[in-house]
């Protein structure tokens, strides 16, 4: 009866960004049958867009650097909400993972003595980001892609997963999806599933994320019974383009500031000096003279305030604009033109130069850029075990942006690419350990499969109904205004009410045309996930009555030590899917062992 193709593997990996590719390589090296599945073509995931670099305490530029310092920076950047064990493993293993990329063909920029060079980024005490100009993500994804292809890993491109399946024992058993180029359905049975689906930014109006950032992995994990944590912790990157309107949100790498760019308001003032929080005062420069010395020699002065963690800078820009000191198009000025030579800018930031020249007609070697905050990254995500990337569901693993915990309430720049390769590998290992010696997955429940297929086809059965693009636009407006960079209790209540109304509209979508590469249908299948993650973000934001990292409440402007001790855990104990209730339960964070705690004492 079934009119869909079926495949059976040991491990399927959903997502082919850095995390998914690295996981696939690891599982394949263990001799397992591996499938790698992605919504776009191979090599087009978000990872390709990453610009500035990959953070790893290799100590090539500052020998003083080591994993303890990186660990400490990461935890402080995340306002101590991080899963300390993830932060520790990440800091310890990132250097080896970066070196491994060179064994697979990557070519990073060099120091004079031929080692991988490293650049400064916000929140990192030392120059720590290995990079290739400002196209580091391209280098990372291409290297992993070429490695994976050379290992003959089966790749299912433009294949979208709709839902996960579980067997009678509650273990994950496979997934259902469809081929975008044909609209035909496909099922996988697998002993283990690794989620590496990236982020959620597409539910906000101004975002650096592509159409893929719809939070599918977060949603299908929750629907399958896994827990999400801290979904309110969303990073608004301080510097997105603001003009022309059609490119609003596109990222301007932090590398601009790492390489000497400064932020100014309409009065020409370097306003960041006015916004240094107590926590960072001891290590931040007090004057422009002091800050400027630091770029050449980190011992000659303290860090410029432009390089504070992203949450601090984004909020400050927001405040300046609100106070009427913004740029003509509602941002502030990012000026590197007056500070570095045109030759230096073109060499260090070639794709930024290109991007502004072609999209905005602005020559960044001559004129300041206009920039403002853009929704960029979600720190929250699927709750996982640090060492194995295992979720609470047997056989289900998660790594990369879809996993929560590593970055606490705010991520430092460059810590994502390193996260992908550290925990992508660990997810591959965790899944392999789990799979080895297990019998094949049970046959899939045909009825369950059929009901998933039927549900996804409903939009075609309605003669009239909602246009999915209208719903997406209204959702983006809502999230931008009510669950944006600054939040209030009343606005969050309103958001939750309106999200319910949007869900009703999603259930009434009508799509015309065939199933072959139909973007409207594709969006119709994305919207349930977008509504689910948006609901989770709003619920978390409402419950966390404090301001911490990427989560800022106007009505609770300070961090509250009590909230600093809990993760906001979300689950669907009764029912599953967009319309089922999401329960929120604050649970204690992992307690850091004393020897690591001591690192923070020493630093004071």
């Amino acid at each position, binding site marked *: 009866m079934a009119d869909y193709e079926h495949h059976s593997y040991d491990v399927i990996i959903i997502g082919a960004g850095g995390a998914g590719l690295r996981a696939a390589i690891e599982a394949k090296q263990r001799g397992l049958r591996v499938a790698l599945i992605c919504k*776009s*073509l191979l*090599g*087009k*995931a978000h990872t*390709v*867009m990453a610009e500035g670099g990959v953070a790893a305490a*290799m100590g090539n530029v500052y020998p003083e650097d080591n994993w303890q310092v990186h660990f400490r920076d990461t935890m402080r950047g995340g306002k101590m909400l991080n899963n300390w064990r993830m932060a520790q493993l990440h800091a310890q293993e990132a250097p080896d993972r970066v*070196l491994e990329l*060179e*064994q*697979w*063909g990557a*070519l*990073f*920029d*060099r120091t004079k*003595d*031929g080692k*991988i060079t490293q650049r400064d980024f916000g929140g990192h005490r030392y120059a720590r980001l290995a990079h*290739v*100009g400002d*196209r580091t993500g*391209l280098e990372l994804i*291409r290297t992993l892609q*070429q*490695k994976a*292809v*050379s290992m*003959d890993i089966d790749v299912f491109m433009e294949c979208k997963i709709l839902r996960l399946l579980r067997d009678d024992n509650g273990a994950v058993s496979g997934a259902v999806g469809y081929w975008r*180029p044909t609209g035909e359905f496909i099922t996988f049975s697998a002993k283990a599933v690794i989620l590496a689906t990236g982020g959620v930014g597409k539910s906000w109006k101004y975002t650096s994320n*592509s*159409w*893929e950032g719809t939070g599918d992995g977060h949603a299908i994990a929750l629907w399958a019974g896994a827990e999400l944590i801290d979904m309110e912790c969303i990073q608004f990157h301080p510097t997105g383009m603001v*003009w*022309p*309107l*059609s*490119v609003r949100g*596109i*990222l301007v790498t932090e590398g601009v500031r790492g390489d000497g760019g400064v932020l100014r308001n309409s009065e020409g003032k370097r306003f960041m000096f006015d916004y240094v929080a107590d926590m960072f005062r001891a290590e931040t420069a007090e004057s422009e003279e002091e800050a400027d010395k630091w770029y050449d020699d980190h011992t000659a002065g303290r860090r410029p305030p432009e390089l504070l963690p992203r949450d601090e800078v984004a909020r400050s820009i927001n405040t300046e604009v609100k106070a009427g000191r913004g740029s003509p198009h509602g941002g502030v000025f990012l000026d590197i033109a007056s500070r570095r030579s045109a030759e230096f800018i073109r060499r260090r930031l070639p*794709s930024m130069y*290109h*991007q502004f020249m*072609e*999209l*905005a007609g602005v020559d960044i070697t001559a004129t300041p850029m206009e920039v403002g905050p853009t929704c960029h990254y979600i720190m929250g995500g699927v709750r996982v075990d640090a060492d194995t990337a295992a979720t609470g569901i047997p056989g289900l693993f998660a790594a990369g942006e879809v996993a929560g915990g590593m970055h606490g309430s705010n991520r430092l720049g460059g810590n994502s690419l390193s996260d992908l390769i550290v925990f992508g590998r660990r997810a591959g290992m965790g899944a392999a350990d789990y799979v080895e010696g297990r019998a094949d997955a049970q046959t899939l429940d045909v009825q369950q499969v059929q009901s998933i297929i039927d549900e996804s086809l409903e939009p075609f059965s309605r003669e009239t109904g909602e*246009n999915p*693009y*209208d719903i997406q*636009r209204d959702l983006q407006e809502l999230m931008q205004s009510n669950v944006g960079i600054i939040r209030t209790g009343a606005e969050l209540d309103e958001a939750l009410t309106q999200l319910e109304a949007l869900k009703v509209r999603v259930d009434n979508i009508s*799509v*015309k*045309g*065939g199933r*072959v*590469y*139909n*973007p409207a*249908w594709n969006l119709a299948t994305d919207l349930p996930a977008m509504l689910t993650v948006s609901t989770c973000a709003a619920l978390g934001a409402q419950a966390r009555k404090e301001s911490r990292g990427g989560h800022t409440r106007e009505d609770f402007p300070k961090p509250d030590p009590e909230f600093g001790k809990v993760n906001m855990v979300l689950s669907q104990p009764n029912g599953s899917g967009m319309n089922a209730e999401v329960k929120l339960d604050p649970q204690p964070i992992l307690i850091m062992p004393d020897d690591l705690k001591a690192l923070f004492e020493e630093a004071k």
Partner: protein
Amino acid sequence: MADLTMRIWRGDQDGGELVDYEIDSQEGEVVLDVIHRLQATQAPDLACRWNCKAGKCGSCSAEINGMPRLMCMTRMDQLPEGPITITPMRTFPIIRDLVTDVSFNFEMAKRVPAFNPPAMPEGGYRMQQIDVERGQEFRKCIECFMCQNVCHVIRDHEENKVNYAGPRFFIRYAELEMHPLDTNDRRELVREKMGLGLCNITKCCTEVCPEHIKITDNAIIPLKERAVDAHYDPVAWLGRKITRRTKRSAAEAAADRP
């Protein structure tokens, strides 16, 4: 009001036609923005690929007024007045509307014998910036496949696709060939099985590359020289490359691949 006419190819494997859409212009838009607005308002099922909207992922290639371009990096105000014609890349089979089947390229990628460096010394490989820069030029490739699309060897001769890697993969072979650490020798392979000889250096590929990679001058021509050397005069070749590690033969390298 509606001051723009977008003339877009709509159809599938069985055929199709140019369809005119009228829409108003907005300040600062690129072609992809207009396509998105058409999807949201008039043509919800209009198929096109995109991801980054910033020229970084190479998804949105199409032919704009007959010229291969990235739709996300082509500003509307830089196109001539009059209807704007958007058609899919011609060299690849149609899936639907502006989306083509580019699997040819992924097949060619599978045939590239893998990078094969010596064991890594403690603390990582040492390479000089000047040496990595040669490979870095080719690694800027965003796989938009527009160079493949314009190359007449496959654009006009479907039958050549079996044994022709195309400019995108000539730069990949060149990159590996020039990699300071690589030990595989792919010169015979690229000459005999990958069709390097079919390229007659028309430079059309270089002209369309959005990353401004000098495909012909920096990759294809040096590769041709090396491949010829390898074929006719291996002794001279070895002599010139004396400072480099001896590379494995093409047969050995190809054996890495099924």
